[in-house]
């Protein structure tokens, strides 16, 4: 044992051969996963801060007309994807500093409630929050954009292969029942002033369209079907239904389940012994198998 010719074996693990030059990844000290994450982040999350000029552009005297022109809308939509949620809130602040509504496409002055809180139909709201906007509708529209920035859905932006946050503007509110009712009232009053006239015209147009639709639905739609409504005469008091003899007769009524008598036909007599039962079972199962096989091969 003492005179073994083998040299002592190292207990250390064999080192893998070192690469010639460290890769770029190793130089930055990042793992592959981290690098990949950074790459996706650079396409989505990591954005340079918005320059102050953009804030000025979107806050001072923007939009130039009311309702906003198409160029104003496209300008806003081109800038918005670069905003972070907090920067968007800054923009609202900045607009409020100039006393305009926080929604970037509204040039009206913001509300000016006093006091700390205000009771509204939806609950108690801080006046600080209410005063950011000119109306509840603008608040909805403004926060609609904020939500999209907070939970961005990305889309590919053109040839550069960059990810861009998809921003949609909230549509104007559609006229509700109240507005239509008002419009109809305006029609009956012969349109004393211009505003009424306009609404009356709208209602008239709607009526016309409804008439057309009706014609379209039932052909030329002029012929009417004669309908006469008569009363059903009752001569005697109602009685509970009874089983007729065809269904099993009165004597078997207590054995019926939903009109079917259990245990009358197709059931074996139960006087066979224990052994016989076993044989029966054994025979029964293969017969099913054969049947099923026959079904399988037509």
């Amino acid at each position: 044992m003492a005179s073994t010719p083998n040299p002592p074996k190292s207990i250390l693990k064999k080192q893998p051969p070192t690469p010639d030059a460290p890769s770029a990844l190793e130089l930055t000290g990042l793992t592959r996963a981290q690098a990949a994450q950074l790459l996706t982040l650079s396409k989505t999350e990591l954005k340079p801060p918005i320059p102050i000029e953009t804030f000025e552009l979107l806050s001072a005297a923007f939009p130039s007309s009311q309702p906003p022109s198409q160029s104003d809308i496209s300008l806003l939509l081109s800038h918005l994807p670069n905003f972070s949620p907090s920067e968007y809130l800054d923009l609202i602040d900045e607009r409020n500093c100039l006393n305009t509504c926080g929604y970037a496409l509204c040039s009206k002055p913001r509300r000016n409630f006093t006091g700390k809180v205000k009771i509204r139909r939806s609950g108690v709201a801080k006046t600080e929050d209410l005063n950011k906007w000119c109306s509840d509708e603008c608040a909805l529209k403004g926060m609609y954009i904020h939500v999209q920035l907070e939970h961005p859905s990305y889309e590919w932006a053109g040839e550069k292969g960059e990810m861009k946050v998809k921003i949609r503007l909230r549509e104007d509110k559609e006229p509700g029942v109240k507005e239509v009712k008002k419009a109809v009232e305006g029609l009956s009053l012969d349109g004393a002033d211009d505003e009424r006239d306009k609404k009356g015209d709208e209602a008239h147009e709607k009526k016309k369209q409804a008439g057309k639709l009706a014609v379209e639905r039932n052909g030329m739609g002029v012929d009417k079907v004669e309908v006469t409504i008569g009363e059903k005469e009752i001569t005697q008091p109602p009685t509970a239904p009874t089983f007729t003899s065809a269904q099993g007769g009165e004597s078997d009524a207590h054995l019926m389940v939903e009109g079917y008598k259990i245990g009358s036909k197709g059931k074996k007599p139960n006087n066979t012994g224990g052994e016989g039962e076993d044989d029966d079972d054994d025979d029964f199962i293969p017969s099913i198998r054969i049947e099923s096989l026959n079904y399988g091969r037509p």
Partner: protein
Amino acid sequence: MSDDFGSGNIHDKEVSRLWRAWRTIHEMVADRGYELAEEEIKMPLDEFKRKFTNGDGSPNRSIMSFSARPSASMIKKFTPPPTASNPDPAPECGTIWVEFCPEKTSIGISVMKKFVEHCANNSYKAGILVTAVALSAQARKVMTVTSQYTLIECFLEEDLLVNITHHELVPTHILLSREEKMALLKRYRLKETQLPRILQKDPIARYLGLKRGQVVKIVRISETAGRYASYRLCV
């Protein structure tokens, strides 16, 4: 308190608050080494009311602005030591401009830009804007971005109601010149980073307008040693 409610004018409270802010900002400017007349710093409330209020007693902030030139000792302190390449260096301080912002609701980019432009156009080396309400986030950004040439600072009126340096627990802070700082580091064989630190946003650092890299000497009263001096590097 009874005076605030009793004497009738609703603006009295605001005016007296403004007067205290006015006095503190003057003391601050004087403490930094600018030249100010004694009667300007210690203006009594009556005179302040007469000068800076409208007919109905409401304060007129737009006429409260003032400027001050650095004193000889301050110029000396802020002049870097002459070198071979630059035998006659220019002092790093200049005239200061102080303005009270009349805006009462909120201060945005436009107000801030106007102030910065005014400072730059009149070649002021430093500008202080005293506001009644907080700046918006972007206005703050304008302040830091444009402070390459002009040093812009902002103070809230409510932060200036009391002069913090007059509090008994606040020790004296003295700004060291470059030469004094070099001598200190040499004397104790220190590197800059080995000094204790003070934040730039520290109330005293803001009061003195410290920049990164400047050193203050803090003199405390000590029971055993009489006076105890320590030094802090502004970071």
